[in-house]
């Protein structure tokens, strides 16, 4: 079995949650080995991240380079191609950086690539059996991946539970010189913070969140009326922002706001993992959707199969009567 590496995303010296999840995925590929962490960056942040990782990884490969102070995928790719042994299996979190890095990296490593993997059902020789989802989680698939010349596998954040175990007391290995000089034709300039909206949805205990099922901008007031009756705010999923029916600042999800309400009403929302990633604190979740098979019903506490455009006005007037 090839050697397994976990690429660690970190920020401000703190490893991402995925750093604890990737070893669980690695275990399902090969129970006999523990993966090696590979960390790129620069300065005190990189050192702090490596120090933290030594507690959970048996070996931590550090690649320090001033150009990697911000994780520019093109530079990180060049460093990894030089440092990783041929035929390695590399695991990364399926988030914006993994989407940026992994497909091209797999080509340069001459390795197979699979994105957004939810589970690993074992290996038969050099063939892995992986679980993915398609069509926004409406159906699952098994995928076979030939890892005989290595693989890059993007793992869905949250899909694997961190392993329980004793501190690893990992060895730190400095691979910086092997990465050599790095130049890129894509240059990071700056990060622009999200614009604040008129309403801060993170401050509300009750959210009436609408998705594609709201159908048009003119129907948003139906949700607002319900939110008003509940003393909450209206939030939304990505398609509503894409269609310009609501402001970006109202969007719940990995590319929008992270909210921690007491009650979350997911209305006409199918329930993609990117949306669910923005809901924290385990709120009481009510899902209302016309499609009885919508993935949101798998995670909600209470489900109602109905058309929100008809349901909203009746619920609102009943609440007002009370």
């Amino acid at each position, binding site marked *: 079995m090839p050697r397994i590496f976990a690429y660690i995303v970190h920020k401000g010296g703190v490893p991402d949650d995925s750093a604890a999840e990737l070893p669980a995925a690695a275990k399902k590929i090969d129970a006999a080995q523990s993966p090696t962490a590979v960390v790129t960056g620069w300065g005190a942040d990189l050192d702090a991240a490596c120090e933290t990782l030594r507690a959970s990884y048996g070996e931590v490969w550090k690649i320090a380079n001033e150009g990697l102070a911000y994780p520019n995928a093109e530079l990180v790719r060049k460093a990894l191609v030089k440092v990783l042994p041929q035929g390695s299996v590399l695991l990364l979190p399926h988030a914006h950086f993994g989407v940026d890095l992994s497909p*091209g990296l797999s080509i340069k490593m001459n390795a*197979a*690539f699979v994105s957004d993997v939810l589970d690993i059902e074992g290996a038969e020789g050099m063939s892995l059996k992986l679980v993915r989802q398609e069509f926004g989680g*409406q159906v699952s698939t098994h995928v076979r991946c030939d890892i005989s010349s290595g693989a890059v596998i993007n793992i869905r954040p949250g899909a694997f539970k961190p392993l329980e175990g004793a501190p690893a007391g990992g060895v730190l290995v400095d691979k910086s010189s092997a990465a050599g000089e790095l130049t890129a034709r894509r240059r990071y300039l700056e990060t622009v913070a999200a*614009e604040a909206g008129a309403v801060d949805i993170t401050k509300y205990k009750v959210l009436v969140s609408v998705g*594609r099922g709201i159908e048009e901008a003119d129907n948003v007031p139906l949700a607002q009326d319900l939110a008003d009756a509940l003393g909450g705010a209206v939030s939304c999923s990505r398609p509503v922002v894409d269609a310009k029916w609501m402001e970006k600042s109202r969007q719940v999800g990995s590319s929008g706001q992270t909210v921690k309400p007491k009650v979350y009403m997911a209305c006409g929302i199918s329930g993609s993992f990117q949306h669910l990633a923005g809901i924290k604190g385990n709120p009481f*979740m009510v899902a209302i959707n016309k499609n009885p098979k919508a993935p949101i019903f798998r995670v909600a506490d*209470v489900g*109602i199969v109905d058309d929100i455009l008809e349901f909203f006005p009746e619920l609102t007037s009943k609440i007002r009567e009370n």
Partner: protein
Amino acid sequence: MEILVCARRVPDTSENEIELNAAGNDIERDDLVYSINEPDNYAVEEALQIVERAGGNVTVATVGGEDDEEILRREMAMGAKNGVLISDDAFSGSDGKGIATILKAFVEKNHFDLILTGVQAEDAGAQVGGMLAAMLDYPFASLVNAIEVLDGGKLKISREIEGGNKEMNEIDLPCVLSIQTGINEPRYVGMRGIRQVASVPIPTLGAADLGVEGAVGGAAAKVKRVDYFAPPLGKGAEMLGGSREEIIDKLIEMLKAKGGLK
């Protein structure tokens, strides 16, 4: 600027509920409504807007079958000058790398300054754009939600990262960008527009035209979908039944108990 947009025709999830077929080995494909993959449509709109500002032409290419010509015509009705259907039985079973190999061969027979793809298709893995860029040795950026053309063969682009933040980058041309939904407001295409391009010839290219025989298709694929199955139910919601009025009464009681209603 000569711009290529790589597009796909996919089952439209806003029009269909995707279910397993009776045999449980595929999705039920009868009566599915297909359309252009949504992010690809944003990519075409972005290409058209760049050409409106900076001049040039937009070509839309798809790797697929005869039926996929319909999305090429649709995007030509939006304003794309050329449509190209890349189709061959030998392409069947290609993985992401196989599709990228086919597109690379097409790109090398033409001249493009900028190549756009949609960020992801709902039945695939957000992979072809990044692979194509690596094969061509072009720079790449994913999840792009704004593009500004700079002087000197460069673009300023914004990437969508966590929390609604934007990562700003400068990138050299030629390059490949994967386009995120919401980057623009794609223009409307009516039946009349589609009729106007109905007789514009769309060339079809095969494996021999591109010189990719043997390098693509199922035999060359390292990644293969084996089957489809129903996702695990998880804990599952308590489904409220009865009339709408009864459901509303139950829901109000629950909201009171959970602090959603005083």
